[in-house]
């Protein structure tokens, strides 16, 4: 039995196979509509999330399976003090696979250590968000036609943004990837990403404050939201929340074949005027998220496409 807790749980080859399957699902969606008949996905969401949870649920429903779960800690036994380990032991009796989001980092690992069913990390605090990473990889591969020889700009909250950490972890495995890390000094990537991931893999990266200066070099611009829930101090949040706003003027500085991604939800960091630009790919990215989660559920449940 396998879990997905970290983007690196799958080898490069396995990730490639998963993305191939996601692409086939996109191209032949009706052929997959019954492959998970009778299977149940439990969505264990200890903190609010609309998008990721609905994406998982849509994925399972598209495969012919069904879903059950909770969408906040208040509506689960966690409010009565039940441990993650006990919850997952019980859920293992009810479902065939589960997706867990938890505000505390490492909670999905605790679940996996006690689970009788595959556990998918749907985001744990500021730590990892591997299915968003798979979504991002599929988006980049579909839009650019490759996952190597790319200059990737990551902009916004790079300190607490788990999508950013997971994406960096995943992309360093591909050839000739360069990162431009755009953030205010307070929201730089954590030291372990800089040292153990980027420097340890000899990855070229630049840390800078100016989005304007970075724009002309980018193949992909990955915008992130400054997340209020990650701050202990509201003053810091207010000071930093609107530090980057992507608008038409900035888009003019970018290449014609550069694409803008965003894990969503956005707040102010991408002006709505950018939505009409053909390079704005963040809503298409959400669609890729469903396909890649379908592929992941099939892979972890060891379900194959019908012949």
């Amino acid at each position, binding site marked *: 039995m396998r879990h997905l807790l970290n983007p690196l749980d799958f080898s490069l080859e396995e990730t490639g196979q998963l993305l191939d399957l996601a692409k086939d699902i996109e191209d032949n969606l009706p052929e997959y509509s019954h492959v998970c008949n009778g299977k149940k996905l439990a969505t264990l969401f200890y903190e609010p999330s609309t998008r990721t949870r609905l994406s998982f649920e849509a994925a399972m429903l598209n495969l012919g399976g069904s879903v059950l779960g909770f969408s906040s800690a208040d509506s689960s036994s966690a409010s009565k003090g039940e*441990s*993650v*380990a006990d919850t997952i032991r019980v859920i293992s009796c009810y479902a065939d696979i589960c997706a867990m989001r*938890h*505000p*505390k*980092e*490492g*909670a999905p*690992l*605790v679940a996996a250590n006690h689970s009788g069913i595959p556990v998918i990390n749907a985001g*744990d*605090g*500021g*730590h990892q968000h591997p299915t968003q990473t798979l979504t991002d990889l599929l988006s980049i591969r579909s839009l650019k036609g490759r996952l190597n020889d790319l200059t990737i700009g990551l902009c916004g909250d790079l300190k607490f943004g788990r999508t950013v950490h997971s994406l960096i972890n995943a992309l360093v495995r591909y050839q000739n990837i360069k990162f431009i890390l755009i953030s205010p000094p307070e929201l730089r990537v954590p*030291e*372990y990403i800089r040292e*153990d991931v980027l420097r340890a893999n000899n990855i070229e990266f630049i840390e800078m404050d100016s989005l304007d200066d970075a724009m002309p070099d980018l193949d992909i611009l990955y915008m992130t939201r400054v997340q209020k829930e990650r701050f202990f101090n509201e003053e810091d949040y207010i000071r930093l929340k609107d530090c980057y706003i992507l608008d038409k003027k900035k888009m003019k500085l970018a290449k014609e074949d550069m694409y803008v991604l965003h894990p969503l939800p956005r707040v102010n960091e991408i002006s709505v005027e950018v939505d009409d630009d053909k390079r704005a790919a963040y809503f298409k990215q959400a669609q890729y998220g469903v396909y890649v989660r379908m592929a992941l559920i099939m892979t972890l449940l060891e379900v194959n496409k019908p012949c």
Partner: protein
Amino acid sequence: MLNIGGLKEGIVLDHIEAGKSLEIYYNLGLDKLDCQVAIIKNAKSNKMGKKDIIKIEGGMDHINLEILGYIDHNITVNIICDNKIVEKKALSLPKKITNIIQCKNPRCITSIEQGLPHVFYLSDAEKETYRCMYCEEKYSR
């Protein structure tokens, strides 16, 4: 010169960095033993200038080499039998340590689930860096 009697059978922890012996005494749980334990502080050392030494009566059962390796892998562990050193055990940084240090990251799952073991793995042997198994936060000594 202060003279401490010889040890017929037991363990001598030698080359402890001066001042660290009490930390080791408590971390190894030596305060809970019934046998004789001698702590020698600031002993003269050609190699270190000053060093601490701990002598423990009895067998190896008392010593958790994993803890000792984490605290200071340069310590020499001498096994004494019939007043002679019969074995010197080399210490190394353990690859994994459990319930020796605690994760300080307030966002880590261990901060709310008290029953979880605090597990750290050696992420960089050269820099002697350990990271929490759950949240990957670096442990700063």
